[in-house]
């Protein structure tokens, strides 16, 4: 079998289902504790957020809509005045450390100059305002986070020894004896280059990745985004940056071009293989001899043995909607699964280069053909393609999950991968837990009938 093929990319019509990128506010407002997200858009955006994020709305969210009305569209009202009014109200009610304006399709089409208005409103209101254009015209789902982080990059303090020291002192006085601050001012870092990780992960996952690098005696100088806006890491020449998520290509570009940081191009720490390769790469860039990584990876694989028995030999089809597809596919191939197709909204071959290479190696190692990678997929054609080989598992959005289940194809809701903790060695198992859930619940009594679809009962 010929196995060392180079990846082949295809591009379809782009008629696929995904979440609107404004959904990034859902996890970002929880991540950045002192932020407030203001989505400048229409009822459509609000309706999406309200329904997609369901219960989080119950918990007094720190996000809201600036709902555009007919007067805003026809420019009878001054955007600046209106936004100022709303931001003052937010300041009064919540007093956040930063307000993030999310531009939407409508602000794009009516060419509302959010970037131009923001500095003016910022001086009036006295709170930093960041503008991110996370709209459905240009981006898909998780790319929303990319636009926010790219915009936030500009607000990070300049990396400079004197300033960096002073900044550290102020943050320490603010956050007190927070356990994370211990990482920031460990002394050994002084003779090492600075390393900043970018990508939003829950606090516990961040601390797990921190301690993973600490084992290799690499200490971090910060995360983008940080837990609080006022703790953003300093950036500049001589700072190394490394991404933890595959959808952060704009952020990576901004960090390199605008902040002169040096990008560590590594596979992403998803799955034990990915995490290992990720640490390996960081170590090699920072001239550190990795220590005990082999054993650590092996141990993790051992603990997952029960799950791997379940998935080995099973086939999977990614319809594609969140850009995590390549990394998860690579991990699942390593687990012994057969991947038919990897749909993906957008493929940055440079930013994901190391990940693609690892995918290629993994295919070779596991003696699997390279899966076809379909950019901007066409959901209708994908479903037609799926009927023939009938994969054991389709990883897909909610729009298709129930109908596919009714047609006898087990599905896993892809959005869960975005919200679940899947990074690092510690969480490798929860990734498999997600993937095997539909396979484990197989109950022959109820689910054995080949099709429960209404359409096919005629």
């Amino acid at each position, binding site marked *: 079998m010929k196995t060392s093929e180079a990846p082949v990319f295809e591009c379809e019509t*782009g008629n696929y289902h995904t979440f609107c990128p404004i959904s990034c506010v859902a996890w970002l407002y929880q991540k950045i504790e002192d932020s407030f997200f203001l989505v400048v858009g229409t009822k459509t955006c*609000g309706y999406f957020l309200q*329904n997609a994020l369901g219960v989080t709305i119950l918990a007094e969210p720190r996000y809201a809509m600036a709902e555009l009305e007919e007067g805003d569209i026809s420019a009878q009202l001054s955007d600046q005045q209106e936004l100022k009014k709303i931001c003052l109200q937010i300041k009064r009610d919540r007093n956040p450390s930063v307000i993030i304006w999310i531009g939407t*399709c*409508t602000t794009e089409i009516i060419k509302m100059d959010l970037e131009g208005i923001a500095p003016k409103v910022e001086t009036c209101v006295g709170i930093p305002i960041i503008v991110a254009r996370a709209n459905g015209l240009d981006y*898909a789902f998780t790319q929303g986070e990319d636009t926010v982080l790219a915009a936030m990059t500009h607000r990070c303090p300049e990396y400079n020894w004197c300033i960096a020291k002073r900044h550290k002192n102020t943050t320490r006085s603010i956050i007190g004896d927070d356990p994370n601050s211990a990482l920031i001012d460990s002394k050994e870092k002084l003779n090492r280059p600075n390393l900043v990780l970018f990508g939003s992960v829950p606090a516990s996952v961040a601390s797990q990745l921190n*301690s993973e690098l600490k084992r290799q005696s690499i200490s971090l100088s910060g995360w983008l985004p940080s837990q609080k806006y006022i703790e953003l890491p300093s950036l500049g020449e001589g700072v190394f940056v490394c991404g933890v998520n595959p959808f952060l290509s704009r952020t990576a570009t901004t960090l390199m071009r605008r902040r002169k940081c040096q990008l560590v191009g590594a596979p992403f720490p998803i799955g034990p293989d990915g995490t290992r390769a990720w640490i390996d790469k960081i170590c090699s860039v920072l001239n550190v001899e990795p220590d005990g990584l082999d054993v650590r990876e092996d141990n993790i694989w051992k603990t997952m043995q029960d799950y791997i028995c379940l998935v080995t030999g099973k086939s999977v089809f990614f319809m594609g909607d969140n850009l995590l597809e390549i990394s998860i596919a690579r991990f699942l191939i390593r687990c012994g699964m057969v991947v038919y197709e990897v749909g993906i909204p957008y493929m940055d071959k440079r930013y994901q280069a190391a990940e693609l290479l690892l995918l290629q190696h993994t295919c070779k190692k596991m003696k699997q053909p390279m899966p076809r990678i379909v950019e901007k997929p066409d959901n209708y054609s994908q479903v037609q393609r799926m009927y023939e080989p009938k994969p054991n598992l389709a990883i897909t959005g909610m*729009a298709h999950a129930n109908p596919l289940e009714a047609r006898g194809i087990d599905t896993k809701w892809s959005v869960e991968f975005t919200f679940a903790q899947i990074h690092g060695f510690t969480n490798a198992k929860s990734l498999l837990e997600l993937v095997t859930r539909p396979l484990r619940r197989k109950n022959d009594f109820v689910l054995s009938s080949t099709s429960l679809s209404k359409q096919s009962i005629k």
Partner: protein
Amino acid sequence: MKLAYRMYAGPAHIGTLRVASSFRNVHAIMHAPLGDDYFNVMRSTLERERDFTPVTASVVDRHVLARGSQEKVINNISRKDEEQRPDSIVLTPTCTSSILQEDLQNFVDRASLLSESDVIFADVNYYRVNELQAADKTLEQIVRHFSDKACKQCTLDRSVTNTPSANIIGISTLGFHNQHDCRELKRLLRELGISVNQIIPEGGSLEYLKDLPRAWFNTVPYREVGLMTAIYLEKEYGMPYISVTPMGISYTAKFIGQAEKLVNAWFCVFSSKIINYNLYVENQAKFVSQAAWFSKSIDCQNSAGKEAVISGDATHAASITKILVRETGIRVSCSGTYCKHDAEWFNEQVQGLCDEVIITENHTEVGDMIACLEPSAIFGTQTERHIGKRIDTPCGVISSPVHIQNFPPGYRPFLGYEGTNQIADLIYNSFNLGMEDHLLDVFGGHDTKEVSTKSLSTDKSIDWTYEAESQLNKIPGFVRGKIKKNTEVFAKQNDIPEITVDVTYAAKERSNF
């Protein structure tokens, strides 16, 4: 611009899609950017729909902004036409396309030359109407389109059926308990000896729309969707309609009374017989519906004079207000609706039944009102349920917007005699739950919610560091105990005297499922 956290009625295109995808073999194409097809997710999850939602997007991206849609919309329409052969394709505008001001009607005209299916442009103004108004408008538009078409082809059947029959108008997908209501309504009509001619839009077929005028009369159970269609059919074909919502005992009786009148109007023509439903109504109220007896029973005595606040769409809020006041003796301190366009009707309906009427689309106003009145129970939408949670007041959900829990697989109509039973349960449970909570608090409260430290500690050899403990406290309560125990077992097995954050991670890595 206005600051908004939640909304009651959705945007216009949702209404159009609800009506279009309720019909059988109708496909809707949205002119919208990527991610606006969230409707498919809602239908697939909330309704637990087994089939692919017949809605696709003709995606608006940068290229469309720069050059216009050009052939894209037309190509997408003819592609759907070939792939799925729908009876009709409805081109649905969204907020985006309404600003772009492309001539979608022109696309529709051109596409209908190329495709076999009827192509219709849903003519709704995004910024002027909401989901409910758009649904109403679209349904009328579709009915008008196909009856005009039948008129032209001379296939329109205007001869009334031999036996009494009625159309049910306004049952649609993602409607609040619509499926159950429809079943109950069908049963009610059948027991009255009235057959159902057609149900639209849910499950309706476009080819049979021409037979709509064959029914003796139309019924519109919900004011929000269907009224325009009924008015159109009255104007065009002289069909009378009943717009009374048969919710609660007295209004179900009123509904039946009107049906009686309409049936008799034709019966006089066909035969000299006259039908009388009085006995049926009496028997149903006495034996099938428990609500009348329930409101007389001791149970209900306890809730008499208690206060409630009501909020919802016009139909449900008005009906529930009437039921609470007239049928259960509960005081309604405030009744409100978000259907601003129907404010006049609503005011008229609840006049004299409640102390205050609030008509607003702003949920914070409703929240403030509830907080201020401190009712014993709320009957509202999911939004009010959230408000109730925050101020510890029980809430019964009576109207959209809704969650998946409001699409129960079990039979839960709000209409008809079975509906009265369901509503009685809902009311009684809400008040009782509040009472129970109150008593628990009076007598010392629930169990403590603190983490129990005694789970594994006959010997207290294992200590948790401050950091690990605080990490533990971040874990949701329902799994915290288990994780704590697993970690301690792991520490014991490995002779670890103190649990640090790293130990918790290691324990997680080792644990089996």
